[in-house]
């Protein structure tokens, strides 16, 4: 959440999406407790799941507040969606999904790598970290 607030200092359009970050944090907490960072084969799909959730959560915000114009890419995707016969809202969801799809999976993969790279002494200080890679 703090990241999106800090980002919004540079680009105010992040601010309305703070709510989505809350969901991302909760999802990550559940994923950690479930030990989904044990290896990349689990972490990356978990990231995809988050990608879908995040896209679903950000669609209403993007649609209502931004009219689905958060960025050039999103706008093009929405126009493409419309061309394919989707309604306004569905086209907006389509654009959110496409733009958000990959990066959460990459993030989860990176988080898994970091957690596995933690030294013993530091890892011992964060029990949830150990649990998330199935080492607790």
């Amino acid at each position: 959440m703090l990241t999106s607030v800090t980002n919004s200092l540079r680009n105010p359009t992040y601010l309305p999406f703070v709510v989505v970050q809350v969901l991302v944090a909760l999802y990550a907490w559940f994923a950690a407790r479930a030990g989904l960072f044990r290896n990349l084969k689990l972490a990356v799909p978990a990231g995809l799941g988050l990608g879908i959730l995040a896209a679903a959560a950000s669609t209403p915000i993007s649609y209502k507040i931004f009219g689905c114009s958060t960025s050039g890419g999103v706008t093009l995707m929405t126009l493409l969606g419309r061309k394919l016969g989707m309604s306004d809202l569905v086209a907006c969801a389509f654009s959110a999904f496409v733009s958000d799809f990959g990066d959460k999976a990459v993030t989860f993969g990176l988080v898994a790598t970091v957690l596995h790279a933690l030294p013993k002494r530091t890892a011992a200080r964060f029990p949830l970290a150990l649990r998330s890679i199935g080492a607790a």
Partner: protein
Amino acid sequence: MSGRHPFTLLALAAALPALAWTLPAPWGPAATLIVALTLCLPAPRVARTAFFTAAPFWLFLFLLHDRATALAIALRLSTMIASFVWLVAILPPARLVEALVSAGYSVHVAFLFAATLSAVPALRARAQRIVDAQRCRGLATRGGPLTRLRALRALALPLVLSALHEVDERALALETRGLSAGTRRTPLAPPPDLWVERVARWALVAGCVAAIVGRVLWRV
């Protein structure tokens, strides 16, 4: 304007977008945008930033929607962008921290906000140093996706590990500097809070509530 109490500036920067989204388009958001722009005008740099941040949205919106809808959303978005860019330019974080502390908020709340703000440039500088150092021992940063992924790993891992490793030292430093001393912290430069400003703040809140109620009643 910059002499006003930080909470007044916050209230104004929050009220304008709130009013923009509750007052009926197009004259509502147009009015709030004009107010936001008059705030930005004294500082050309702020006005320019606001303009260049908002401009792309006007283009996208007119591509996406019919004239009326696009205009409404564009005016509202521009109000939000202008008032927020103005707030960031006019309210130095240090003054907001002082205001939070002297208003009795726990120093930890102020610390969390300020520490995040000062951590961002520090970590960005460290990231640049790490990338430079890794390149000087052969790490290629330009090339195919595999190369870029390997470069990302050689940056993200040391950044996170070195930052995590310093958690102890940072905690010790804050402890020794009395952050959790439990005594009431002395605000270094408490901003003067005139009753006029307090009244203005409540007026803004009341205005927003009235707008929301009006919109609900009018819509029903």
